[in-house]
């Protein structure tokens, strides 16, 4: 299979979109965990 810049770009951008979205989920999860710790401390 010869390299094709369009093919590479399409596959790369697909995973870039998915990884970016998953990163937002992970960062929101850690932010929530911090909030939960803070709430437990205030109890």
């Amino acid at each position, binding site marked *: *299979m*010869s390299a*094709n810049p*369009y*093919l590479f*770009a*399409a*596959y790369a*951008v*697909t995973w870039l*979109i*998915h990884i970016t*979205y*998953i990163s937002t*989920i992970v960062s*929101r*999860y850690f932010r*929530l965990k911090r*909030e*939960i710790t803070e*709430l437990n401390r*205030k109890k």
Partner: protein
Amino acid sequence: MKRAFPILGVLTAILLIYALYQALIGAPTEQTMGNVQRIFYYHVPSALVGFMLFFVNFGASVLYLIKRNPVADIVALVAAEVGVVFLTVNLVTGPIWARPVWGIWWTWDMRLTSTLVLWLIYVSYLFLRRFSSSGETPALAAALAVLGALCVPFVYFSIWFFRTQHPQPVMGGGGSIDPRMLHVLLLNWLAFACFAFLVCWSRYRLETLQREVDQAHALQSLLDPSGSVR
């Protein structure tokens, strides 16, 4: 259930890697377009998974409108959000394929335009969910979701009903496909469907946790006379 997630995650990762290998190396090279045709193995499954999620969103929204079930509301939100991600992939990979094949990035034909409109409807849905603080937001969003779901069959069948530049459907339509290519297409569809399921699962857990934290904050602000809680 906690153990099932990492096991399914590993299985899905293996499936995605195998599907990627099949898309890049296993599938035969198309004679006219060459290797750029392989974009199809990501472009089409992304759209199909997006449509599946919009139907889940539709079902959950109808259930919410009838029963006012909060679980249905969360499922609707999650399905719409992940569906938008998959439709974004479809909308981005399409022009990357079109440039070397058609010589243009975009054309305002019925399939492309209706897909963009569908994407805008669901982005509006997510903006409504994110920025409206009214108590009726879930019901309004559910009504919008019903409208969005009605557009999905229109987008899918637009290439049957209108003369478009977009290729004919390879499954159940006028187009034809090598059985080995169809096998790779279905494999990638399955891999992305499993991946979408896991992402939805994570997002569902996150949304449930978010609502519990919001409730705890609300309760704390009621109990705290100084009102120092944010």
